[in-house]
């Protein structure tokens, strides 16, 4: 457009930081331009053009950052408000937020990321993280956690570690979250049955659930069948000191998986869990179809940050506790992450926005516990003190109760995991529908794992 600028703009970009005087002059010039922009629209245009070409040299140059996440209306409102707070403090930064429901999010993300054009900042979860990081889509944030531009000193260490792959900080958790079982307090009260407790073994829980089914006497069961749920299997393995993945390989044995499937075959035989077709309704994990919500079972296997949302879907009062088994199998888990695009034109600004979202107290108060408990423990304290939603308070209380019992964090699941967890879901169902033995199903899983993780 204006042929003189590219040459001069490229140069400082290559030696960024080494030419402070030059940077200062530009800053003055741009401020001047920004000032006249009101009177002369063309000047504003010029400033915008100049800014895109030299984002690294001048922290006050105009920068546009694309920002993409999934979630509902409520989350969108909170996120946009937090981003507005950032841009009000950094008037040179323009953030273009895009959001949509979870369904279709990953398709869209993959499509826009094709050919290296991922959004500058995007939300991702541990199922997708390695797929993107392993294909070099994400920006390595180690530099910024190293120089404290993204300050993780007040974050739980395991939470930070759960964003690392191959020695790189590939993403920063948006908040801490823990798998939790959510139970129907009202229904259990009516039946006169005690509520489940942290630290119950699977055997205890299954016996308890069979009791619920018997007492309810009808089409109501004690427990959702979690055999197809990778996170339940993972925690079951970890409670025994085992692991799901070891780097890019499966860390457990075929015998372990047979035992897992057999556990749930027996549970179904005892009446603790519903038949396969009822469980299948809830198998994708969406809140609206959970058996606790549809009043078919007393317990659903969920995440702790879903309690509030789930409570809104039912009139019965809900409670929450840990998954069965030794809670040392649990760890401080990222509910989702902020990741950045490797091809972003403004990596410093991107890092600064992420830092703002996870460490700024005001931003934390706006975001609340929507994406899990805030990472930064100071922010967490401030946010929990200001909560009004009872179920969100319960979530915080639960996290506080269970956090001291956590075990060490594993690495996030490897590339190929998102397909493999679907394989586990489908294969576990061949057992629950009675079409395959635990042995045959386990064998099938390992053969699919070999090709999925290859």
């Amino acid at each position: 457009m204006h042929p003189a600028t590219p040459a001069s703009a490229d140069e400082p970009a290559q030696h960024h930081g080494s030419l402070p005087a030059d940077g200062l002059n530009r800053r003055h010039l741009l401020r001047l331009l920004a000032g006249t922009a009101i009177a002369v629209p063309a000047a504003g245009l010029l400033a915008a053009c100049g800014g895109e070409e030299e984002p690294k040299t001048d922290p006050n140059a105009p920068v546009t950052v694309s920002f993409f996440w999934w979630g509902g209306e409520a989350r969108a409102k909170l996120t946009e408000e937090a981003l507005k707070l950032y841009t009000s403090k950094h008037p040179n930064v323009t953030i273009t937020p895009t959001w949509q429901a979870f369904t279709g999010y990953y398709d869209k993300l993959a499509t826009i990321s094709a050919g290296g054009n991922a959004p500058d900042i995007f939300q991702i979860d541990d199922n997708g993280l390695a797929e993107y990081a392993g294909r070099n889509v994400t920006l390595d944030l180690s530099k910024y956690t190293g120089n404290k531009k993204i300050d993780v000193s007040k974050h739980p260490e395991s939470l930070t570690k759960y964003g690392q792959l191959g020695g790189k900080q590939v993403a920063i958790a948006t908040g801490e979250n823990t798998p939790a079982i959510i139970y129907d307090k009202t229904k259990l009260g009516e039946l006169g049955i005690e509520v489940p407790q942290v630290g119950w073994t699977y055997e205890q829980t299954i016996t308890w659930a069979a009791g619920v089914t018997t007492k309810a006497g009808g089409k109501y069961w004690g427990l959702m069948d979690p055999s197809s749920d990778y996170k339940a299997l993972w925690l079951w393995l970890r409670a025994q000191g085992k692991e799901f993945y070891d780097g890019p390989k499966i860390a457990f044995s075929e015998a372990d998986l047979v035992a897992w499937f057999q556990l749930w075959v027996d549970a179904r035989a005892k009446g603790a869990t519903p038949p396969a077709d009822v469980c299948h309704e809830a198998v994708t994990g969406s809140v609206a179809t959970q058996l606790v919500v549809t009043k078919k079972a007393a317990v659903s296997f969920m995440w702790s940050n879903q309690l509030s949302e789930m409570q809104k879907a039912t009139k019965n009062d809900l409670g929450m506790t840990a998954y069965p088994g030794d809670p040392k199998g649990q760890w401080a888990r990222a509910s989702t992450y902020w990741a950045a695009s490797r091809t972003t034109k403004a990596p410093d600004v991107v890092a600064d926005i992420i830092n703002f979202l996870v460490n700024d107290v005001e931003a934390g108060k706006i975001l609340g516990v929507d994406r899990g408990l805030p990472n930064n423990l100071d922010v967490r304290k401030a946010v929990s003190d200001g909560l009004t939603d009872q179920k969100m308070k319960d979530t915080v209380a639960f996290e506080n109760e269970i956090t001291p019992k956590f075990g060490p964090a594993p690495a996030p699941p490897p590339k190929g995991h998102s397909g493999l967890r679907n394989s586990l879901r489908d294969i576990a169902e061949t057992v629950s529908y009675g079409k395959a033995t635990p042995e045959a199903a386990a064998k099938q899983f390992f053969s699919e794992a070999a090709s999925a993780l290859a």
Partner: protein
Amino acid sequence: MRGRRKNYASRRSEGLAGYVFLSPWLIGLMTITAFPMLLSLYLSFTNYDVLSSWEFVEWVGFDNYKKIFTADPTFWQSVRVTLTFGLIAIPLKLAASLGVALLLNRERRGVGLFRGMFYLPSLLGGSVALALVWVAMFNGEGAFNAGLSLFGIEGNNWINDPDWALATLMVLTIWQFGAPMVIFLAGLKQVPTELYEAAQVDGASKRRQFFHITLPMLSPVIFFNLLLETINGFQGFTSAFVISNGTGGPLGSTKLYTLHIYDKAFTDFQMGYASALAWIFLAAIGLITIVFFSTGKFWVHYSDGEN
């Protein structure tokens, strides 16, 4: 001579003008259809994974195709499901649309209203909303079972039963018979009434009239509908995806071929492999079309040709 040449020249410039007017469409065809298609053909011979940059795209020859036929049980499962779906749902849909078209062909009071009502489901198309309605109708506590319970019948958990889930999908597809019905109606109007009058004079029964006049006269329309519905039917995706929550379950019973392509492309990030699946699909549908066209001459009756 001179006049003819001039004529030829002006025809040529008319042809050019024609292409100029066609160009928006031609450019669209090239950029939106032909280029992506050729690119996907190329990708089907690579390990393209969507996310990695282009320098990591490697030529793998026929590996994807080999793997599909030798080492992908889900491929065969999806072929089985898709064929079952197509072989049952498409003929039934055509039969339903023809049957209703015959009923609505008579001029009676309010026939327009009925035509509109029968066409209505097709307006909703393969929409997500409709698929969600289907979930609400055919799950364990759905409206369908509520209806059955009035007769003391305890219904199945239709969409969550691997033996029935595909059948509910077929019912959804068949129910949307409006488009072929309208085409059949138009076809029925074209059948000359003299033929029926002559047949009546000869004392032919209604049944004979149907088999010896209506069906042969309608055969080009049947052929057209069959072709269109086959191609559409095999490409169905939305309803299966929504009803099974993207799983193709329970137990892969609704895993249409298109769902398998989707899984490979967007869950496993094997876009090269998915492209190979898509090209096999294209070849299969092409083959079916060729079979239709080559057998058509034995049963499709074009009356215009005899004029």
